[in-house]
C-alpha cells in the first residue's frame, strides 16, 4: 500500500479562518479534513499516514523556515507520494501548496501532486514544474477535485506512465504528451470549426505561445534623481565569461558588479550570446550595453545614478521559451534594491 503525506491549511483543518492563519506547521497522525475524501477514493491502494497543517500567513511570511520544518516532517514518514491541497481559488494557500510540493519534490525526490483553480497565482508559478490538477474555484468543487486528483495520485505514487494533460486532468505544463483521442483529427477539426463559427467555446489542441500583456507603469517623475538599472538580453559578460553562460537557451543569467566601471572595452567585456555575429559587440560591448554614456549622464546629472549591478541573459527576442523565470527573479531584486527604472537592451 502506498504511503501518502497530505498538506492542508488551517482552514481545511478546521482550526479557523484568517484569524488562525498565523499558526505554524504541525503534523497530525492520519487523516484530517479533505484527506477523508481522498482516503475513500484510494480505497486500500493508498493510505494517508500523516497530515501537515500549516497557517497560510505563517507559510508565506516564513517560507524558508516553513519549508525546512515541513520537509523534515514529511521525511520522517518516508512516503511514496506527497499531496498538497487542493487550494481552489485561495491565493496564499495555492502558493503555499505549490511551493511546498515543489520543495518536497526537489529535496526528497518523491512524486508530488496539488490542485487549484487555474487563476490561482500558485498555478502560474508552479504548473510547469509539478502536476497541478485544475479544480473549480471554490471548496464546493472538492468532490470533483478529489475525483480527478485521486487516480492521478495513485499513478504518480506507483510510478506509472502519466498520460497527456487532457486525459489526466492536470494543467498543461509545456510538456507535450501523445495520446489517443476518441475521434480522429479531421472530425475534431470539423467540430472545432462549427464551434468557432457558432461563437461557442472551443479549446485548441495546441495553444500558441503566450502573448499576454502587462499594463505600463507610471513614468519616472524626475529622471535626474532616478536610479537606473541596465538589463540586457544581448549576453554581455565580463571577459572570459566567468559564469559560463551558455550561448543559447541558457540555464542561468548573469549579475555583474559595474561599480567604478566607466567604459566596457574589448579587454574587459564580451558577449556570450550565440544569436548574432559577436564581432561588433566584442570590439565594443557598449554597443549592446551602453555603460559609457550612462556614466557620462550620471556625471552630468542627467540621471540620478546607474545601478551597481547589471543583469544579462542570452534570450533572443523570438525565442518562445523566454527567460521568464529568470526575469521574475531578478525583477524582485531590482525592486528590493530600490531601482526606479530599467533600460533593457536587446539585440
Amino acid at each position, binding site marked *: 500500500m502506498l504511503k501518502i503525506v497530505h498538506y492542508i491549511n488551517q482552514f481545511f483543518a478546521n482550526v479557523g479562518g484568517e484569524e488562525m492563519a498565523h499558526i505554524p506547521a504541525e503534523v497530525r497522525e492520519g487523516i484530517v479534513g479533505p484527506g477523508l475524501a481522498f482516503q475513500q477514493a484510494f480505497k486500500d491502494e493508498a493510505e494517508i499516514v500523516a497530515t501537515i497543517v500549516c497557517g497560510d500567513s505563517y507559510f508565506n511570511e516564513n517560507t524558508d523556515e516553513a519549508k525546512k520544518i515541513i520537509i523534515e516532517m514529511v521525511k520522517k514518514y518516508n512516503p511514496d507520494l506527497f499531496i498538497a491541497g487542493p487550494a481552489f481559488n485561495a491565493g496564499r494557500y495555492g502558493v503555499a501548496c505549490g511551493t511546498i510540493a515543489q520543495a518536497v519534490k526537489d529535496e526528497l525526490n518523491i512524486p508530488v501532486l496539488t490542485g487549484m483553480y487555474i487563476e490561482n497565482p500558485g498555478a502560474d508559478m508552479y504548473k510547469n514544474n509539478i502536476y497541478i490538477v485544475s479544480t473549480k474555484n471554490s471548496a464546493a468543487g472538492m468532490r470533483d477535485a478529489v475525483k480527478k486528483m485521486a487516480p492521478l495520485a495513485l499513478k504518480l505514487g506507483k510510478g506509472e506512465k502519466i498520460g497527456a494533460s487532457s486525459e489526466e486532468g492536470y494543467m498543461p505544463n509545456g510538456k507535450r504528451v501523445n495520446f*489517443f483521442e476518441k475521434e480522429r*483529427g479531421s472530425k*475534431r477539426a470539423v467540430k472545432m470549426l462549427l464551434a468557432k463559427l457558432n461563437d461557442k467555446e472551443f479549446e485548441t489542441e495546441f495553444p500558441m505561445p503566450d502573448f499576454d500583456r502587462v499594463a505600463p507603469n507610471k513614468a519616472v517623475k524626475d529622471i535626474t534623481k532616478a536610479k537606473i538599472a541596465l538589463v540586457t538580453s544581448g549576453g554581455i559578460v565580463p571577459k572570459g565569461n566567468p559564469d559560463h553562460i551558455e550561448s543559447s537557451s541558457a540555464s542561468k543569467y548573469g549579475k555583474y558588479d559595474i561599480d567604478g566601471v566607466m567604459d566596457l572595452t574589448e579587454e574587459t567585456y564580451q558577449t556570450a550570446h550565440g544569436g548574432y555575429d559577436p564581432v561588433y559587440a566584442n570590439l565594443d560591448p557598449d554597443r549592446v550595453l551602453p555603460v559609457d554614456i550612462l556614466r557620462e549622464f550620471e556625471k552630468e546629472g542627467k540621471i540620478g545614478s546607474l545601478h551597481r549591478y547589471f543583469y544579462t541573459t542570452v534570450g533572443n527576442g523570438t525565442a*518562445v521559451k523566454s527567460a521568464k523565470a529568470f526575469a521574475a527573479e531578478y525583477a524582485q531584486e531590482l525592486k528590493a534594491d530600490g531601482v526606479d527604472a530599467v533600460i533593457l537592451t536587446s539585440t
Partner: protein
Amino acid sequence: MKLELGYIFIKDIQFSDVSKVENGTLYVNKEEVKALILEDQNFKSADVELAKPGESVRIMPVKDVIEPRVKVEGPGGIFPGMVNKVDTVGSGKTNVLKGAAVVTTGKIVGFQEGIIDMTGNGAQYSPFSMLNNLVLVCEPIDSLKQHEHEKALRFAGYKVALYLGELAKNLTPDEVEVFETPTLIEGLKKYPDLPRVAYVLMLQSQGLMHDTYVYGIDAKQSLTTMIYPTEIMDGAIVSGNCVSACDKNTTYHHLNNPVIHDLFAEHGKTLNFVGIIITNENVYLADKERSSNWSAKLAEYLGVDGVIVSEEGFGNPDTDLIMNCKKIESKGIKTVLITDEYAGRDGTSQSLADADVKADAVVSGGNANEVIQLPPMEKIIGHVEVADVIAGGFDGSLHKDGSITAELQVITGATNEMGFNKLSAR
C-alpha cells in the same frame, strides 16, 4: 458533381492462380503482378509479398500506399493525367476494394524512413497496419537516377492498384456512399442558413522526393486553385512524396481524405461544404506568399464563413500553414488548422517552426519526436539494411534482437496532418 462510391469490403488477401475478389477475399496472381511491374525497363527484378493485420511483419521503407479503385460509370479513369487520360473525374460510380492496399517500397535514396508494422506497438500508429497489403519490392537497374527511380516506383504502384481495382469493376458493392457537391449557386439556394465552409488542402511540393501531382501536373508549378471533393476520390491528386514518413500524405490518404469525408458528413446538416482549395508548399518564399494570397482570395471569393486547413510535411510548411491562417482570418473567415508537432523527445521544445496569435484553433496529430519501442518482427519486407539508417544502427537504437527504439516519425502515417488518426498531444 455527384459520385457514388461502392465499397467492396476486403477481409483477407491471398496469392492464387487467378486474380479475383470472392467472399471478401482478394486473390492475387503474383506472376501477373510481377510481369506488370517489369513492363517498365527501369526495373531489373520485382517481388510481391503479402502483409496482413496481426502478422509479425515489418514493411520498410514504405514509399506510397494506394487503395485499389476502379471507375464503373462516368468519365475518365482513376489517376487521371498520370496513368489514365486527363479527363475530369469525380462523377458517376467508382468501386473501391475497402480494406486492401498496394504498398510500394524502395530505397530511392539511402536514408528513407517509413515503417509499417503489422502487429505490436507500432501497429497502433499506422492506419495501414489494419489493411490487407500487397507489398511491391522492386529493384531498379543499376544506372537508374533517383528521379527516374521515384517515378518508376510511383507508376508501378498505380498500375498494380488499377489492376486490382479492375477486379471490382463488375462486383456489387457491399455498401454505397453518395457524395454530391452542388454548384455555388445551387448550394446557396439549398442551404441559405447554413455556414459555408471550404477546405484548404496544402500539398507538399519542394522538389525531388517532396512532390504531389494534380491531374499529372507537379503541384509546385501550379497556382492555388479549386477542385471538387469527388475528383480527389477518383485519384486526381497523387503523392510522389518519399520523405517525412509520419506526416506525408500518401495517395491512400488523398483518396480517403478524412476532412472531405467528415465535412460531407455534416454537409446539409450543420454546414454547407462548398468545395476545396488546393495550394502548394514551395521552398521559394515569394511562392509561399503568392500561394497563400490566392488561398485567402479564393476563400473570400467563395464567400465562405470558415475553412479547415490541413498541412503536409515538416518545417517549412508550418510557414505556409500560418500564412494561410493569417491571410484567411484577416478576410474575416474563421480557420481551424490541422498539423502535427515536433516538440522534441521530452515534449518541451517549440512544436512548430512558425506561430501566430490568429492560429487559435489547432488540431494536433501528435508529437512526432516522441520515442516508441518497436518489437522485433519475424519477417521484414523491403530493405532490411534501411533499419540501420532509420534507427541509427546498433550503436543507436536498432537492437540485436531486431527491436527498434525510434522516434514516432519513422512510422508511415503516424502523425498525419489531414487528421486521419486519433493520435494527438497535449
